[in-house]
């Protein structure tokens, strides 16, 4: 037989606010920024394959690069390893290079 409640029970997960805007409750405004426009096709484009440094990511990108070479040879792939720590957002120089010399990026792999 169920025990009847004699008192209200608090919700442990009922956070004060949930903000998809992403300001985390700190009162600062936040703006959305669109994703980059997509390519019509990656044929003939330069795609950067960026190794995060996580275990297995280099080998995964090796296979990805081999696939492009075999199945989409017009795609030029450029391999780079993230220059900083895999767990930190400390890479900037590489993004500048991708912007100057590439048209798309594939990041991999973390888990």
């Amino acid at each position, binding site marked *: 037989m169920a025990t009847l*409640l004699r008192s*209200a029970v608090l919700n442990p997960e009922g956070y004060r606010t949930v903000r998809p805007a992403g300001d985390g409750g700190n009162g600062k405004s936040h*703006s959305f920024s669109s*994703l980059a426009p997509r390519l019509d096709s990656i044929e003939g484009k330069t795609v950067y394959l960026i190794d995060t*440094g996580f275990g297995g990511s280099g080998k995964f990108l090796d296979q990805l690069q081999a696939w492009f070479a075999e199945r989409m040879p017009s795609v030029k792939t450029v391999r780079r390893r*993230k220059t900083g720590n895999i767990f930190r957002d400390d890479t900037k120089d590489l993004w500048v290079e991708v912007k100057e010399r590439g048209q798309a990026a594939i990041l*991999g792999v973390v*888990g």
Partner: protein
Amino acid sequence: MSREAGEIEQTYHIPTVAAAGSNVVSFGIGPNVAYNTGMPIRYVGVPFPFSGQPRSVLKGYIEGKDTVSGRPMMQAIVDALTAPLTTDERLSGPAPDAPAAEPRILVASSEDDLQRLFREKGWTDYNPVILPTQERVAAMLRGTHHKPDEIVKSAAGTFGSRRPFTVEKVATLAVMAGAKPEYLPIILALASRVPYQDSTTSIAQMIVVNGPIRTKIGMNSGLGALGPDNEANSVIGRAMTLIHKVIQGYQEGITGFASLSNPLRYDNLCIAENEESLPDGWLPLHVQMGYKPTDSVVTIFTGWNFINSTGWVEQHYAPQFLMRDYMSSLSGMSATLLMDPSVVDLLHGVQGFQTKAMLGDWLSQNVEKTAESYWGNSIVSSMLAPLGRQGLEPYASWLKLPDKAMIKPFANARNIRTVVVGGKTASVWFATDFMPDRGTLIDAWS
């Protein structure tokens, strides 16, 4: 990865796709959008496991299915770079208002219903919880002078998602864990340190309490301190597990994918240091970290390894020798020795280690392993090899060594710490690789 992919897309305007395991993908398309960026990133999902797998397995993943869409992996990658943006992906300008707060009070008709709800929501370690009634939470809040609606922290969730939580939420979890009000300042201090580190590996945390609060609330730093034999140790440790699950939002198989996980996560190895047993010259952990002896401090350690000395110290083999031997199997990034006061008596009184630092120095000079073994640890290679490639010593030199060359992985003796705990019935110890945070003043939460 989510943040970096977002930066490449939104700052550099480069179409990007991120390939990741299910844990990162579920965060990236779920909590990261809901609580952080508001903007989805394009992902493909790579099956687990991929670390340490042969090339044939990884080739199979590429020729197989994207775990997000279920479509062929390479088609999904190409589509992610070419398919037109959706309405949500094109949003720009001011973010919309946050939705209304979630309900503070749960609606249910019986305790059984609520216990079921707590289990279904994952708000439990699957031992029974004390239901957090308003009266119980109000009583718990008498353990702190902080106001119930005060924000403890905003950046809370797994992988850095943002969910502001209040003192009342922490008190609610403290009730659920079975805490007394006098434990609440420690639990608040622990909550102020989220997020705790997660991994697909078997990472775990350890809680060490120093200072006057240990004895004030009856924590055990002596006989059986690491076992399930003390209310404060057990309950405070359990509260951290509930904070991890409920506030941080760690749900195995949803936001976290620890392949084996770690049994230490049931109570996070919550102990107090046996400061009363320390000989002259051996400083308590918190004093070594720069706090005053009269401060009450909780330190959260993170690590993987927990090696038991097995038996007592043999007279013909000094304790530091077996510690050296066992520590050669640690990664070398950090070590924390947990040792019984009887071992300290031998090290201090017989072996001449007048301070904890002297012991650390000796171990730093005497623990060795091959370069091959050192770099063969994936955590070391992923965390420290990039530093070596940037020229930072000693990693730059170690990267150039032949496989069988011997290195001293604890070259920095400050990465070796000692916590004294135990009841002096056997000269036993543990060698761990746990590394501490900077410590948190408990008094600030009283």
